């Protein structure tokens, strides 16, 4: 593959004025105004369905479509399709400039996209976290105090939507994009441009959601239930567009992952030799490809309800709010496993390395991941046990929901038996993985209460369910997200992270995470509903406790941020190629990984978990002469 990838880079001013983030933002804002005023001047008042209000919904959507198109044009995403429309032949990658500017432009190197994802998602993760801090500030007192009525709802909605939307790609975005091609012995993802597109769509989505505060916010929380969303301010459209873009991004990300894993595995990498992380990515990606389109469809209906005045969700006019609830949760429940499964995979991937034992029960672990992925399609109405939908189907959904704990239990068994009689090293990534067991156990067992209809009557819609999904998603995903960061960032950047700060981060996060969310189980049981700005004055002590813990949790995140900036920006201690003694292939490459990954496509002869089974086999076939002589 001869290539112009390492062509000499043009001068800086050319790079700044070319297709990059700067032009993307400028054209994006320009496109927004073109859409907005274009719609107003062309469409005029005749299509102003809302008569009395001072904006027209159609122009809101045209503005954002203009903005997104402008953004993508500015980044250079339309160059290739236009060349193809004019009949030029396909090519794999955009002209790469090298240097730091490639992180701010359309770059088709999967390693660059992985790092872009890490920082981009990190940014929005911290914005979501900031919202959580503001929510807890408001809940210091049992009645309104800091934010005006309505704003609290916007905060809750932004926190939930941001976290759900962004963290869906939280592991597949940075780590799978970076690692999957390496782990399967490939030099690229199947579709490098689509890979870049998923990232930049996510960034556009994040910007749209953050700016909802300028358009009145939205009152619906992350679920966006109609018909309340039909009533919402134009800020509601930001929610719809955010989640629709996230849905498109997720679909494409999953598609790219599956295509890559299925078609691009190196010789010898049979399905039973695939790293368990790749299995986790695969099972997640299947959910993404199939579930996210349902989300896009239901949001499309909602957008039509708001613009074209269709009546999908208006009961008095032939629609039904149950339609929204059903379709949303058909996406929504696979979605929570989109969040949880990569966490399982990371735990199972890291435990063998740090207990120096093979992954116990490989096939069972794979079966567990795929079983969760499959079962997650049959449980969605457990979110609607008291909604009055299909009262007679509740026993079925109760059963299917509890059945999911069987494949989830496989992950526990395989993880625990991998630790058993191992030689455990308590490194920072390992600590985060061990914390996963604790958090996910509490999260999973509290889920049993929610899956049981009689218990769910009290716990549904209360802080109990809120605590439950924070234990599973924050305790299950965010902890493993940090495990992955501490484990792989030295490989990705070539610099080590400070271990002492990492341990401080871990222990503060673990303690304050539990101190924040464990009392919420009690608060929920004692009758505090979610998303309500007021609560019974008797619950003030517990709520204050939670708020203070949450602030400490926020400080713990700042410790992490400090570690990141300090280690990667100032200390810059070069990382060893294989700091953890891992047998996985990415650690047999230099840190950071060279642009072409491998000189010669490796040949696999075993899975990467053969600890205690003698020296690892060579990946380079005999007689290979690629590379330096």
């Amino acid at each position, binding site marked *: 593959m001869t290539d112009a990838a390492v062509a000499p880079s043009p001068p800086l001013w050319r790079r700044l004025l070319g297709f990059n983030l700067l032009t993307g933002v400028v054209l994006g804002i320009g496109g927004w105004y073109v859409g907005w005023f274009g719609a107003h001047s062309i469409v005029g008042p005749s299509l102003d369905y*809302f008569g*009395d209000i*001072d904006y027209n919904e159609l122009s809101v959507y045209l503005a954002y479509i203009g903005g997104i198109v402008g953004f993508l044009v500015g980044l250079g995403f339309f160059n290739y399709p236009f060349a193809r429309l004019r009949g030029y032949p396909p090519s794999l990658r955009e002209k790469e400039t090298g240097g730091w500017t490639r992180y701010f432009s359309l770059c088709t190197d999967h390693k660059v996209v992985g790092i872009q994802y890490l920082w981009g998602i990190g940014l929005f993760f911290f914005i979501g976290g900031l919202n959580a801090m503001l929510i807890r500030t408001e809940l210091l007192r049992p009645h309104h105090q800091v934010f005006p009525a309505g704003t609290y709802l916007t905060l809750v909605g932004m926190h939930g939507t941001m976290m759900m939307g962004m963290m869906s790609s939280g592991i597949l975005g940075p780590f799978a994009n970076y690692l999957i091609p390496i782990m399967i012995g490939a030099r690229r993802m199947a579709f490098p441009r689509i890979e870049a597109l998923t990232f930049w769509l996510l960034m556009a989505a994040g910007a749209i959601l953050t700016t909802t*505060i*300028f358009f009145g*916010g939205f*009152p619906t929380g992350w679920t966006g239930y109609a018909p309340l969303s039909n*009533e919402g301010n134009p800020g509601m459209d930001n929610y719809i567009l955010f989640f629709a873009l996230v849905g498109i991004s997720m679909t494409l990300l999953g598609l790219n992952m599956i295509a890559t894993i299925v078609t691009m595995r190196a010789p010898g990498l049979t399905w039973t030799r695939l790293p368990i992380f790749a299995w986790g990515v695969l099972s997640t990606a299947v959910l993404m490809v199939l579930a996210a389109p349902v989300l896009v469809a239901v949001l499309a209906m909602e957008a039509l309800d708001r613009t074209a005045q269709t009546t999908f969700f208006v009961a008095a006019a032939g629609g039904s709010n149950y339609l929204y609830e059903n379709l949303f949760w058909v996406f929504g429940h696979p979605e929570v496993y989109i969040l949880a499964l990569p966490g399982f995979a990371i735990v199972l991937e890291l435990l063998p390395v740090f207990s120096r034992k093979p992954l116990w029960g490989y096939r069972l672990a794979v079966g567990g991941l795929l079983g969760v992925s499959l079962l997650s399609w049959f449980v969605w109405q457990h979110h609607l046990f008291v909604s009055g939908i299909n009262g007679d189907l509740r026993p079925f959904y109760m059963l299917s929901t509890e059945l999911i704990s069987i494949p989830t239990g496989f992950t526990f068994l395989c993880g625990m038996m991998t630790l058993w009689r191992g030689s455990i090293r308590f490194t920072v990534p390992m600590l985060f993985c061990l914390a996963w067991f604790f958090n996910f156990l509490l999260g999973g067992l509290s889920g049993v209460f929610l899956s049981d209809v009689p218990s769910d009557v009290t716990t549904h819609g209360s802080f109990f369910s809120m605590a439950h999904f924070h234990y599973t998603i924050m305790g299950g995903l965010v902890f493993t997200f940090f495990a992955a960061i501490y484990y792989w960032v030295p490989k990705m950047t070539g610099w080590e992270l400070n271990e002492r700060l990492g341990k401080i981060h871990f222990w503060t996060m673990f303690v304050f995470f539990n101190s924040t969310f464990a009392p919420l189980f009690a608060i929920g049981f004692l009758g505090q509903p979610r998303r309500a700005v007021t609560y019974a004055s008797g619950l003030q002590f517990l709520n204050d406790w939670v708020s203070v813990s949450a602030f400490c949790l926020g400080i713990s995140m700042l410790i992490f941020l400090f570690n990141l900036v300090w280690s990667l920006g100032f200390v810059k201690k070069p990382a060893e190629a294989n700091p953890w003694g891992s047998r996985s292939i990415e650690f047999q490459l230099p840190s950071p990984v060279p642009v072409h990954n491998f000189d010669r496509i490796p040949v696999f002869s075993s899975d990467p978990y053969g600890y205690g089974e003698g020296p690892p086999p060579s990946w380079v076939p005999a007689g290979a002469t690629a590379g330096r002589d």
Partner: protein
Amino acid sequence: MRVGVKLVLVAAVVVAAGVMIGFYVSNLTTLAGSPAYSLPVQNVNGHPVVNLEIQTVAAVGPQLSRNPDWVSYLVRNTSGQWKRETVWSLPANATVHVTIYNFDGASGLRNPFLARPQGMAGNRIMVDGKPTDAVDPNEASHTFAVPALGIILAIPGVADDAKDQCGYAPCPMSNAHRTIKFTFHTTTPGHFRWQCFVPCAAGWIDGFGGPMQTIGYMDGFLNVKA
């Protein structure tokens, strides 16, 4: 890059982030909010008495809002001007005489039960000088309701064919209007929300978007202070 330069960079990023967070939070704290408006308190026989004069208008007008076509409540301040303030401070254990001038037409109540005046002295209101026990639910233009205090009353609307309809607020008293008077008593201190129950936000589904869900228009607080 030298360490000093890096430190300056980091500091700049931190400051920029701080400014943006501050901007974000301040934007959130002022989003559709209005400050509490203290009503003048008279003292009658050692007992606090408040006269609350409010106006309900179909279109708040460009003078008072960025959204001139929104329906709104207005309150009269001490200098006799109409202000778009809906968070009102009241003393505890006070008698509040309320006068509502309604310049808006009827939209109709969705739940007719709320047309029964409740929670004020005598469970009865004066409509254009006539004592009234029940308003025709279909004639209701707005309600003034403080659910936590049990106060609910429907405000009858101006007839559609009335002459001299008010356009944009503030509406002069020469425009067609209905006058509603009643009295209620505040008790313990607290924050009590008040709202309108009539789906009167024209253009939104269920008539409950925009001004109906924005403090400063059809919703507000009674901040009862000790």
